[in-house]
Each structure stands twice: as structure tokens, then as C-alpha cells.
């Protein structure tokens, strides 16, 4: 042992050291440049949205419904929340159940098939999902443009995120805790519901919030399924078009009216704020959960 601890001789700094320093400098320089490019684009987007959105922000936006290309955004805000929450409600039971199954019950081929399908679903363009729901539900089922059709579209888009994040979160529950529960006489289901799920809850919630953020930000699938409405939602699941914020951004920014542009920027600001807040909450949840274990 002692022989191995003989002092290590350091060669004099020479050309190798110079090259190392140069590589170091270049590496850091390129990273910094990349960061600057990305960061400035993000900051630019945020600044534009905040400046133009803030100046358009009135209390009226939150109290009035849209009138043509003017008025408020109450109907759109309500519609966005209703659609996104509806989508989560539909996607959560199958998504969570699949996540539990993948994480705890199946170790065979079926699991890898399901995982593959979930990954494919993530890759399907959302407009394709929208078109599918349009053909199947809006037309074939006769639902018409509606909250139900829009929620189904958002549910399909959110499903793989909920499924995979639930699986990951449950997988991260230490094996030793599950073993401890088994050793105390707990059944598989008992361990899932009393150990895995409670401990994985922050991670699962993160997946739900992610799906929520995606739902709030979606446009294309809703154009095919929810259409648009100037009025508040009356609670009908089918045959009642419903408004949402991203429509305002998409449709109003191309209108030749100042009032329409103001609404579009205000809607963009609201969507951005919503997504940012969801992002911050899920970050906090993740940090807290990683501290707990």
C-alpha cells in the first residue's frame, strides 16, 4: 500500500498545458455563446410579450367577454381552464393507471410496447390529434365543436406525459421501502397505494402540471374540436363551441385592428404567465420531493 502513495511527479507546464488551456477557453466560450443566443431569444420573447401584453391589460379583460375583435377575454380564460382541466380529468385515470402498471407490475414485452406507443404519441403532431378527434368525435359521434371534443383532444396529447412521468416517479420510490412494506405483510395493491403513490405524488403531480401547461398552450387541436365562441360556456358538453386564449393569439394578431392586437398580446401574456407559474410550481415540487428521499 505504502508504495502506491509515493509522491506523484508533476511535469513542467509545456505545450500540452497550453493546448489544454486553449481547449478550455474555446469550450467555455462556445458554451457562453450558445447560452447567449438561447437566452437572448427567450428574454426577447418574454420582454415583447410582457411590454405589449401589459399595456393591453385592463381589468375589463377579466370581466368582459369578447365582442368581435374587441371587448374582454373572460370567455377565453374560462374556456382555456375548462378545456385544460377537462383534458387532465380524462387523461389522469388511464395515464396514472398505465404508469403504475409500467412501474410496478409488468416487466415483460407488453410494457415495452406500451412505452413505445406512449413515445409515438408524444411525437404525433398535435394538429393530427385534433384532426382525428374532429373526424371521430365532432363528425362521426355528432358531438359538434364542443368542450368534450376539445378536452378529448387535449387528453390524448397529455396522456403520454402523465403516463411516463408517473412511471418515472413511481420507479424512483426506493426498492427498500417497497421491500419493507412487503415484509410487513402488505399486498401488491397495498404497497402501490400506501407506499409508491404517496411517495411518488410530487413527481406524479409534476407530470399532471406538465400536461396542464401543454394543454393551456395548445392551439391546433382545439381549432378542429372546440372552434371558438364569444360567449361564456353554458356547461354543455357537446354541440357548444367554446373559446380559449390561444385562439385569440392565433386569429386576432392577423386582424387589421389595434383592439385585436391588444387582445392577442394580452392573451399571449396570460398564457405565458400561466405556463410560467405552472413551471415554477412543478419545479418547487420536484425539489421538495428529492429532498424528502
Amino acid at each position: 500500500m505504502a508504495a502506491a502513495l509515493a509522491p506523484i511527479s508533476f511535469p513542467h507546464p509545456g505545450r500540452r498545458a497550453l493546448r489544454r488551456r486553449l481547449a478550455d477557453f474555446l469550450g467555455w466560450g462556445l458554451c457562453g455563446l450558445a447560452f447567449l443566443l438561447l437566452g437572448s431569444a427567450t428574454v426577447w420573447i418574454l420582454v415583447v410579450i410582457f411590454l405589449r401584453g401589459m399595456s393591453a391589460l385592463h381589468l375589463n379583460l377579466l370581466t368582459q367577454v369578447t365582442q368581435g375583435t374587441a371587448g374582454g377575454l373572460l370567455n377565453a380564460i374560462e374556456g382555456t381552464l375548462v378545456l385544460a382541466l377537462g383534458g387532465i380529468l380524462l387523461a389522469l385515470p388511464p395515464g396514472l393507471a398505465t404508469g403504475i402498471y409500467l412501474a410496478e407490475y409488468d416487466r415483460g414485452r407488453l410494457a415495452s410496447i406500451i412505452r413505445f406507443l406512449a413515445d409515438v404519441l408524444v411525437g404525433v403532431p398535435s394538429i393530427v390529434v385534433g384532426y382525428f378527434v374532429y373526424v371521430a368525435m365532432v363528425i362521426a359521434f355528432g358531438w359538434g365543436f364542443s368542450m368534450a371534443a376539445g378536452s378529448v383532444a387535449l387528453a390524448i396529447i397529455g396522456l403520454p406525459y402523465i403516463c411516463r412521468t408517473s412511471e418515472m416517479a413511481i420507479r424512483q420510490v426506493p426498492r427498500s421501502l417497497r421491500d419493507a412494506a412487503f415484509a410487513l405483510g402488505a399486498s401488491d395493491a397495498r404497497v402501490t397505494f400506501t407506499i409508491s403513490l404517496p411517495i411518488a405524488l410530487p413527481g406524479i403531480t409534476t407530470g399532471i402540471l406538465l400536461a396542464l401547461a401543454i394543454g393551456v398552450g395548445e392551439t391546433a387541436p382545439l381549432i378542429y374540436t372546440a372552434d371558438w365562441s364569444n360567449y361564456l360556456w353554458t356547461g354543455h358538453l357537446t354541440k357548444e363551441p367554446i373559446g380559449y386564449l390561444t385562439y385569440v393569439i392565433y386569429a386576432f394578431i392577423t386582424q387589421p385592428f389595434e383592439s385585436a392586437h391588444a387582445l392577442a398580446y394580452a392573451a399571449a401574456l396570460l398564457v405565458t404567465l400561466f405556463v410560467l407559474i405552472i413551471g415554477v410550481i412543478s419545479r418547487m415540487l420536484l425539489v421538495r420531493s428529492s429532498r424528502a428521499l
Partner: protein
Amino acid sequence: MPNATRNPPETGGGIDFGAALPGASGNETAAGRERIAVRNLNFYYGSHQVLFEVQETVHEHEILALIGPSGCGKSTFLRCLNRMNDTIPGSRLEGEVALDGRNIYGPGVDVIALRRRVGMIFQRSNPFPFTIAANVAYGLKVNGLARRRSEFEAVIERSLRAAGLWDEVKDRLDKPALSLSGGQQQRLCIARALAVEPEILLMDEPASALDPITTTRIEELAIELKARYSIVIVTHNLQQAARISDRTSFFLMGRVVETDATRKLFTNPSRQETEDYITGRFG
């Protein structure tokens, strides 16, 4: 490790029996009736066989220590005794493990009831990230052993007392279990296992991650618990086996080389491999 400080093999083991803890039974086979009888146990992970024709018995009120080098199958064997290996995909078992004469791998055996009777303490303390009280109460809830609040409280206090932890935690039962120190966490895990009143306790190197003082506490605890339970303990620490166990089994490459009264096995082993191991020739 230098080999020079070891006793030469002719003089028997290098284990100091002067350090035996008070209460240790003097390592004689003074045990009661037979509780567990293992016959011709073979165990496989996939096509890889880890246990070969293992024969073993566990008696009432005894501590049986399982020693042997890493990977010799002693932990796997321990986990066969409460069917914890069931949860490992691709594992397979042949032979018989009888608890009070009934094969626990036979048809119609309630694994859940079995695990309640045969409790387990793991190498690394693994309290649930719940409160101290909820940890102890978990097994009661799962098995429906208590209903009223007063019943829970009584069992929680009794179990924590039995694990020697009550005085340290009685004022903070609603605090997170993870706020306890490492040794306290391991004693909490023992309390949690005791709460469901098992008849046999399996301990998988319960003190290997703990400091010497806490290790002593766990060892004293094991000796106290022997009065009410049978204990099978896996340990890497030969001194520990010598200090607390009544009988010791030496595992080597998936086989039981010999099982004997601890004092006999450490001073006058019948087999050359055992002597080589306990005198530090390998392992």
C-alpha cells in the same frame, strides 16, 4: 489486510469470547422446539443457481447467525424464509421450507400472513418517509390488527419500548422518521417489525451500516428479543456472530459448509473451509 496479526490456524479461531455480551446464552444449544426446517433448498436467479441443497433448522428462542463471504447466498437464503424472493422476477426455488411443519412454498399458503409471522430487518434502515408513529403503525394497518386509536397507541408504545427507542422519541412521535439518526432509524425499523408481533425475526446485516456503539445496542436488543422470538441474523462481522448467536451456519458458494453451536464452530470447526474462513485465510 495483513495476515500476520491473525492467529495461526492450529490454535483455532481468532475470536475473542471474553467480549460476549451479558445475556448471551453462552452459545450452547439450549434452544427450544424446532420452528423452521429447511430441506434440500435450491434457489436460482434465472439459470444461475445461488443455493445448493441447503439444510437448516431454526429453533425457538435462539439466535442463528449466518456467516460467509460476500455472494455466498446467505442473504438470498434469509429471504427464502419469508418468501421475499417472490418479488424478484425470474427467481425459482426447489425444496422445502417448513414453518411449524408446514411448507411455506406449498399450495394455498397465504404469503401475506407468512410475512407477518416472519418479520424482516434490512441491512440499510428503510423507514417510510412518514411520521415515527405512522411507521410503527403501518404493519398494524395493513394487517388490520388494530382499529381504535388507543389500540394503535398501545402497540406503538410497546413496540418502541421493545426496540429501546421509546424514551428517545416519545415526545415526537409525529415527527418525520427521517429526522432520526441512523441508529435510531434502524431501531425504528425493528419496532415497526415487532409491532405486528412476528414469531421469527430475520435480520440481514442489521448493524453493518451503523457505528460501534449503535451496533452494540442492536446486538443487546437482539439478545433481549431472543426471549420472545427466534432470530436469524446474517452478518459479515464474525465477532458479532460470536457475541450474540447460539448457533452459527457457515455458507460458502451457495452451500452450507457446517452449522454448529457457535462456540464449537468458532473454536473447533469440523470442516477445513470453516477454519480457513474464521481464521481469515479468505473472505
